């Protein structure tokens, strides 16, 4: 889009703000009813007797059944026509089409905020009165470049009593590239459970990780001057020898420093997640996790003992536990 095109696009875009979705409040196809509530409650695993147990409800403070508040939006949904014929046009679909025509074809619901002012009862008809409330300035998110649009829907019953409101926020964006085609056969693939991010294994470090896979933490030792070194490197900085072997660490250690990771969280890692610099009894240091302790109890100088454990399906790592005093 050239700067002129963008200006023209936005000028028209913001005229959508305030437009209603429907020419007049849209009435739910069915009145609030026990059958649809039961269907919903079964699927959601919701055993709340306020929704489905008429006998209990009669003796409750309310004296009757109510519809689950979270169903508020469901009553006015279009239904099977959406699958059979596509979504019928309304004020929102006009806006979506306008976005789509200009390349903002990506669509992502980001927030739904509902507020409830009264409980819907069996027999209530719900009327949905909705507008396009807001369109943001252009934003860039991890998904791409686009605009947030927000609709505001008000739900009232047949006597005009306000049941609740819903604000729905959608990000309309230019998808960075065509989405990858998953599972062309149509059959669902096994989902891959994420694991920790591994070190690539090269000539200078692969042997260390191979030993770790077998449950051992090794420390590289210069064969010439016996100096220990970690992380491994191909030459001894003391005597420049390239001959080396290794010793196995007892994993007796002491916490030299530590952090607790909060944000961002990475898939494949278990939180709370404490990472520490640990001084090993052999004299070298290692970075590892401290586990089996509340984060607020971790202290510099604390004695720890490590063992190599399988931390996920694919990863063996040393993990350090506090040593009982």
């Amino acid at each position: 889009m050239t700067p002129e095109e963008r200006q023209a696009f936005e000028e028209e875009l913001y005229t959508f703000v305030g437009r209603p979705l429907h020419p007049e409040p849209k009435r739910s196809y069915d009145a609030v009813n026990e059958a649809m509530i039961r269907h919903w409650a079964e699927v959601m695993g919701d055993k709340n007797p306020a929704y489905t147990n008429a006998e209990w409800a009669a003796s409750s403070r309310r004296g009757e059944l109510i519809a689950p508040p979270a169903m508020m939006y469901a009553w006015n949904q279009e239904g099977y026509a959406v699958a059979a014929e596509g979504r019928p046009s309304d004020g929102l679909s006009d806006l979506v089409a306008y976005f789509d025509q200009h390349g903002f074809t990506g669509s992502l619901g980001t927030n739904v905020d509902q507020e409830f002012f009264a409980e819907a009862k069996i027999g209530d008809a719900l009327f949905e009165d909705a507008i396009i409330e807001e369109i943001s300035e252009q934003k860039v998110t991890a998904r791409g470049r686009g605009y947030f649009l927000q609709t505001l829907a008000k739900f009232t019953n047949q006597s005009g009593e306000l049941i609740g409101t819903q604000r729905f926020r959608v990000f309309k964006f230019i998808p960075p590239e065509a989405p990858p085609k998953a599972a062309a056969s149509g059959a669902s693939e096994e989902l891959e459970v994420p694991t920790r991010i591994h070190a690539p294994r090269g000539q200078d470090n692969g042997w260390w990780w191979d030993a770790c896979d077998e449950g051992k933490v090794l420390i590289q030792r210069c064969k010439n001057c016996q100096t220990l070194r970690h992380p491994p490197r191909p030459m001894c900085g003391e005597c420049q020898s390239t001959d080396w072997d290794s010793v196995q660490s007892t994993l007796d250690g002491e916490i030299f420093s530590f952090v607790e990771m909060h944000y961002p969280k990475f898939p494949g890692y278990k939180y709370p997640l404490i990472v520490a610099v640990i001084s090993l009894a052999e004299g070298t240091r290692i970075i590892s996790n401290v586990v089996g302790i509340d984060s607020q109890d971790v202290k510099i100088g604390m004695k720890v003992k490590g063992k190599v454990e399988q931390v996920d399906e694919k990863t063996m790592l040393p993990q350090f536990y506090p040593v009982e005093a």
Partner: protein
Amino acid sequence: MSICDKTAIVGIANTEFSKNSGRSELQLAAEATRDALADAGLKPSDVDGMTTFTMDNTDEIELARAVGIGDLRFYSRVPHGGGAATGLIHQAVMAVASGMAECIVCYRSLNGRSGHRYSSGVSGPLLTADAIHWGWYTPYGLMTPASWVAMYSQRYMHLTEQCQEAMFEIAHVQREYAAKNPAALFYEQPFTLDDYENAKRIVSPLKLLDCCLESDGGSAVIITTAERAKDLKHKPVAIKGVGQAAAANMESMTSFYRPEIAAIPSMDIAAREAYQQSGLTPDDIDAAVIYDAFTPIVLWQLESWGFCESYKAPQFVLDGALRSDGRLPTNTHGGQLSEAYIHGVNGIVEAAKLVRGSSVNQPAKHIENVLVTSGVGVPTGGALLGSL
């Protein structure tokens, strides 16, 4: 031969700072370069050299062609992220003082918010030899800039008193400066102690307001000979000394294997070098722009540059030293915590303004010499700027 007073910064510019520049990094670099040349009163054809970061995505020759710069006879890049900032000056000074080039653009531009965000860490696909290095840390989850700095910070807190209070003071003083700087992303947005304490935890002991911004923008400075500088538009900003260093037993961000990690020996060396070249001492330095990706790293650098004893920086800061009327007004633009994060090069622009006397928050006292530093945890450096 010392390089002191052989070269000068004669042109400076930033683009606007934002969360979404809406244009390419090349364009940001070109705008900053064009504006820095205009600030100096130079033409694109005067430029014959360029320096930038290895991390910068804009090619020297693309930038030269975009701006209409002609023949280049010097170009050089400095590695290690923000550790490169004053390295651009280091390279330029060597080239100009030795006659290898006469007029050099030092530039950096990034869409650090709308494009790749550094806070996402090194968890993505790693394609470089770096991967083996990060591989000692990623399996345990230590993989963001905040996490590496937090590790040093915890140790420093253990060895000092009132570190947490000093971290707040740094964040707060800089936000006060930014609140008065119309170019800053946090212009007119001060915060309170409550805001600071209740902010999201990032990596303990660091919370959100201990961490710098991620932003879009470009910065450029022009360096030429002292002689030529005298005939240009603004008061020349002489380069008195500039050091660059990687101390022994260094890893990029993860030098956890030194006897003590609550210090930055690389900056000690850079400081020694710069003081030696310039003949200046800490007492001669009137203001500073200290690299501030995270609040604690300001403390360690104050020690490296000799403004206070080791492990005494928290008290130095809590005495009000960084404030406008303090011993060492610091990060008067708001810093990377509160103005914008342009990898320290917006800091060089601010340091030059302090020498010129044109900072938006220019302290009342006379400013003769100003320190500006690069990012730490990585190989780093710093430069001493002053009047010619």
